[in-house]
């Protein structure tokens, strides 16, 4: 197996059929990825590669992996820094009344 994501044929349990309500931040994660792709700033393939590189792949939800990968790519390409994302995050969480 080339990575945790390469899971075809692995043993696994019953399939959970519940559908969660898609949250606004998840819609946003989708849209940001898509918009960055449309501008040629990164590709779907790069995004997949970044997702596959996540050490905590199995612990994150689908869109959590998307966001983590988006951050990896934006930092990799020098578009944003990890620090400024962290700072802005802290401001937002404070505004929301704490994480």
């Amino acid at each position, binding site marked *: *197996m*080339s990575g945790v994501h*390469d899971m*075809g*044929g692995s043993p696994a349990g019953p399939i959970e059929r519940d559908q969660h309500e898609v949250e606004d931040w998840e819609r946003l994660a989708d849209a940001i990825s898509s918009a960055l792709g449309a501008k040629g700033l990164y*590709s779907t*393939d*790069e995004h*997949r*590669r970044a997702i*596959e590189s996540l050490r905590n792949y199995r612990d994150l939800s689908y869109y959590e992996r998307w966001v983590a990968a988006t951050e990896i790519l934006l930092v990799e390409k020098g578009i944003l820094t990890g620090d400024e994302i962290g700072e802005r995050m802290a401001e937002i969480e404070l505004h929301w009344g704490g994480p």
Partner: protein
Amino acid sequence: MTYRPGDRVRVLPSKKPGHVRTPGYLKGKSGWIEAVIGPFPNPEDLSYGFSGLPERTLYKVGFKQAELWEFYEGPDEDYLYADVYEHWLEPGTGGKA
């Protein structure tokens, strides 16, 4: 190497690191060319920001489930198809009955 529908092929057992779109469960397995899908830029290179050129031919490759899995539950005519790039294939044995 170009293939045509019906050709027998084997998926390379390569352990190439990095982003690949050939699943582990197919590596080293034998099947047949079901269809020629067409040329696409190579995702392995695209994923690191390269152009992915020259384009590689993508093939729809068929496999007998009974040959992919030990104790497969189902008849011999159950098949699995995956879309595999030309550079992951070599001429092989095995195929449709």
